[in-house]
C-alpha cells in the first residue's frame, strides 16, 4: 500500500489527475486496446475531474480509447435527476471530454431486472478485460461505493438498501421530501473493486480523518469496508493534510519520506 499525502484538496486533485493521465498514456490505448477506468462520484473527485477535463482541453490527454465503469447509481430516480450519478458524470466529466458514449458504463437504476443489471455489469467489466485502475472515494464511515459498514468484503455488484442515516441525509437533495429519496442503490462490490489491477482511493478533509486511520492503521474490518484494500497488491491512498489528523505521527512521517518515490510515478517512463 502507498499513502500519498498532499497539502491541500487542490493538490490531491492535481496529483490524482496526473496519475490517471500517466497511467492512460503509458498504456498507449488504441482501437484494439482500451484502457479501463473505474470511477467514483461525490464531492471528493470533482477537482480531479476538473483537472482531467483541462488535460483533455489542452490536448495532452484523450479518452477516445478509454472505457469507464462507474461504481454505483441510485435505484428508481430518473436518469436525468440532478442528484443521479448519471447527471453527476455527465455534468462533471463526460460532456466535457471525447469519450465514446458506447464506452461509458453506469449501472441503470431503472432497469426492470435490477439483479440482471448488476450481473450484466460484472460481465461487461470482465469482457473489457477487467479494470486497470479503479478510483474511489470513501464516506466518513469508511464505506467505498455503497458498500456501507458490515458489507461483505468479497461482495460483487448488487442491489443495496441504503442506511436510514444516508436516506435522511439525502433528503435535502430531494426537496426534503422523504418519499422522493431513493432507498436503494446498485453498487459494485468490494470484491469487484479488489479485482482491479490497481486502486486509488481519494480521501480529503478532516471529517474523513478517522476513516483514513481505520482504513490503514488498523486491521481489515468489514465495518470499515475500505480497509479491505490493505490486502490489495497495488493500492494508493491519496489524501490531504487535514485527512491525516488521526494518523500516528510515525505513519505520516514514514509516508512523507517516500514522497519523492511516489512523485516519480507521475513522470514519463524512460
Amino acid at each position, binding site marked *: 500500500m502507498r499513502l500519498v499525502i498532499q497539502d491541500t484538496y487542490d493538490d490531491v486533485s492535481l496529483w490524482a489527475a496526473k496519475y490517471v493521465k500517466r497511467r492512460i498514456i503509458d498504456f498507449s490505448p488504441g482501437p484494439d486496446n482500451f484502457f479501463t477506468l473505474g470511477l467514483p462520484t461525490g464531492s471528493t473527485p470533482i477537482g480531479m475531474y476538473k483537472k482531467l477535463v483541462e488535460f483533455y482541453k489542452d490536448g495532452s490527454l484523450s479518452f477516445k480509447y478509454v472505457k469507464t465503469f462507474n461504481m454505483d447509481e441510485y435505484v428508481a430516480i430518473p436518469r436525468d435527476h440532478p442528484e443521479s450519478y448519471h447527471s453527476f458524470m455527465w455534468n462533471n466529466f463526460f*460532456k466535457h471530454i471525447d469519450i465514446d458514449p458506447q464506452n461509458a458504463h453506469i449501472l441503470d437504476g431503472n432497469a426492470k431486472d435490477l439483479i440482471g443489471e448488476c450481473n450484466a455489469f460484472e460481465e461487461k467489466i470482465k469482457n473489457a478485460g477487467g479494470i486497470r485502475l479503479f478510483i474511489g472515494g470513501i464516506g466518513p464511515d469508511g464505506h467505498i461505493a455503497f458498500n456501507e459498514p458490515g458489507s461483505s468484503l468479497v461482495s460483487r455488484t448488487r442491489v443495496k438498501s441504503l442506511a436510514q442515516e444516508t436516506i435522511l441525509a439525502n433528503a435535502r437533495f430531494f426537496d426534503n421530501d422523504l418519499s422522493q429519496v431513493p432507498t436503494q442503490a446498485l453498487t459494485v462490490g468490494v470484491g469487484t473493486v479488489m479485482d482491479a489491477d490497481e486502486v486509488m482511493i481519494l480521501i480529503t478533509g478532516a471529517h474523513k480523518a478517522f476513516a483514513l486511520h481505520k482504513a490503514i492503521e488498523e486491521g481489515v474490518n468489514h465495518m470499515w469496508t475500505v480497509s479491505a484494500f490493505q490486502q490489495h497488491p497495488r493500492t494508493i491512498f491519496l489524501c490531504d493534510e487535514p485527512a491525516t489528523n488521526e494518523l500516528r505521527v510515525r505513519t505520516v512521517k514514514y509516508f512523507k519520506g517516500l514522497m519523492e518515490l511516489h512523485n516519480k510515478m507521475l513522470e514519463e517512463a524512460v
Partner: protein
Amino acid sequence: MAPSSAKGHGYLYQYTNCRILRDGKIIREDLWVRDGRIMNPEVLFFVEKVNADQRIDCDDLIIAPGLIDVQINGGYGYDFSTESQVEEGIKRVSQGVFACGVTSFCPTVITSPPHVYKKILPKIKKRNGSKEGAGILGVHVEGPFIDQEKRGAHPQQLIRDYDNGFQDVLDVYGDLSNVAMITLAPEKQNTPEVIQEFCKRGIVVSVGHSNANLIQGEEAVRSGARFITHLFNAMLPFHHRDPHLVGLLTSDQLPQNRKVYYGLISDGIHTHPAALRIAHRVHPEGIVLVTDAIQATFLPDGTYPFGEQTVVVKGKHSYLKDTNTLAGSLASLDDCVRLFAKETGCGPELALEAASLHPAQMLGIADKKGTLNFDSDADFIMLDNDLNVKSTFISGECVYKAK
C-alpha cells in the same frame, strides 16, 4: 466555421467553444442540433449513445435564439400593405432580415380598405423559415379598428368601428387564417366580444393606436388582449391620475398570472431612452422589441417616391421630403437589441430575450421558437460580445454569415 448547408437526415452537429443563452443566462455550453431541432446531449449520450457527426468551433461567440419581429411593414422599397408589392416585398424582406438575426416575423399590414385585405391577406401565408427566407408567423393587422386621433400614419378615411360586433371584423378582413395578431383601439363599442372572438381563433389581440384610458385597457386585457402596440407611441401619454394604456404595465386589476407584453421601438428615435428605461424598470419580462420598419428600410440614402409621398432616407432617419416629419422607422432588430442593452444597462440576456423569447411567449409559440431549449426549432444566431450578428441559422441551416 459553419457549414453552408445542412447535411442529410439524422446528421448531428455539436456547436462548441461557445456560450449559449438559456433560461435567462449566458452559459458556457455546447449546442447540439439534429434535423433542424435542438437536441438534449445528455439523452444523446446515455440513451442513444451517439457522437456528433460534426463538431463546429464557434470562436467563443454567443449563441442566442433567432430574433422575432412582430411588427415590420416592409423594406427594400416594398410595402406589405400595397397589393402589387406584397409578394416581392415578403420575398426580399424575409431574406434581408437574415443579416439582422431575424429568423421569423409577422408582416404587418396597416389600415387598408376591405377589398385590399381580401387580396393581400391570402398572399401572406404562414410558413417555416428556410434558406428562401425567414419564417412567417402570420400577419399582424394593425387597423383599421383604431382611433381617428391616434391613427399616426394610417389613412384617416379607412378607419372603422365594429358597431355590429365581430361580423364587421369578418366583413373587413375576410379570411383570418393567415392572421397572427391584430392591433385595435379598445375604447370602441363591442370590444370585449370582438377580443373574445379573436382569442377563440388563436389570434393575439393588441391594444394600440388608441385614446383609451386605463380602465378600458384593463377591460380589454380581461377580455383576452395580451399585447400593447409600440408602447408610448400612438396612445395617450402617462398621466398620474389616469396612466392610460401605459398603466397596464403596473395595473393590479388584471387576471392573475396574466402577463401583458408590450412592443418597444428602441431605435433611438421613436422612444426616448429615458422612456425605455422606465418601461424596463417596471415590467422587464413583458418587453418585446419591434422595429415597425417601413418600406424605406434597407435602402441606401436617397429620395424615394412612395405612393403619394416622397421620402428622404438619410442614415437611420427617414423624412417626408422638405419637412422634418419622420416617415417611419428604418430600424433593424439587431440595432434595437444593441441600443436597448446600452440604454437600459439590462445586460445582453434580457436584450436578446426581449427580441426572441418574449415575442414567442406573446404569440404562444415558445415551445418551438424563441428559446434554445431542447426540442425547439434550431433557429439561432451567433453574436460577438457587442451583440453584432455574425451568423444566422434556420432549422439548423446557416442562412447568413457576416463578411
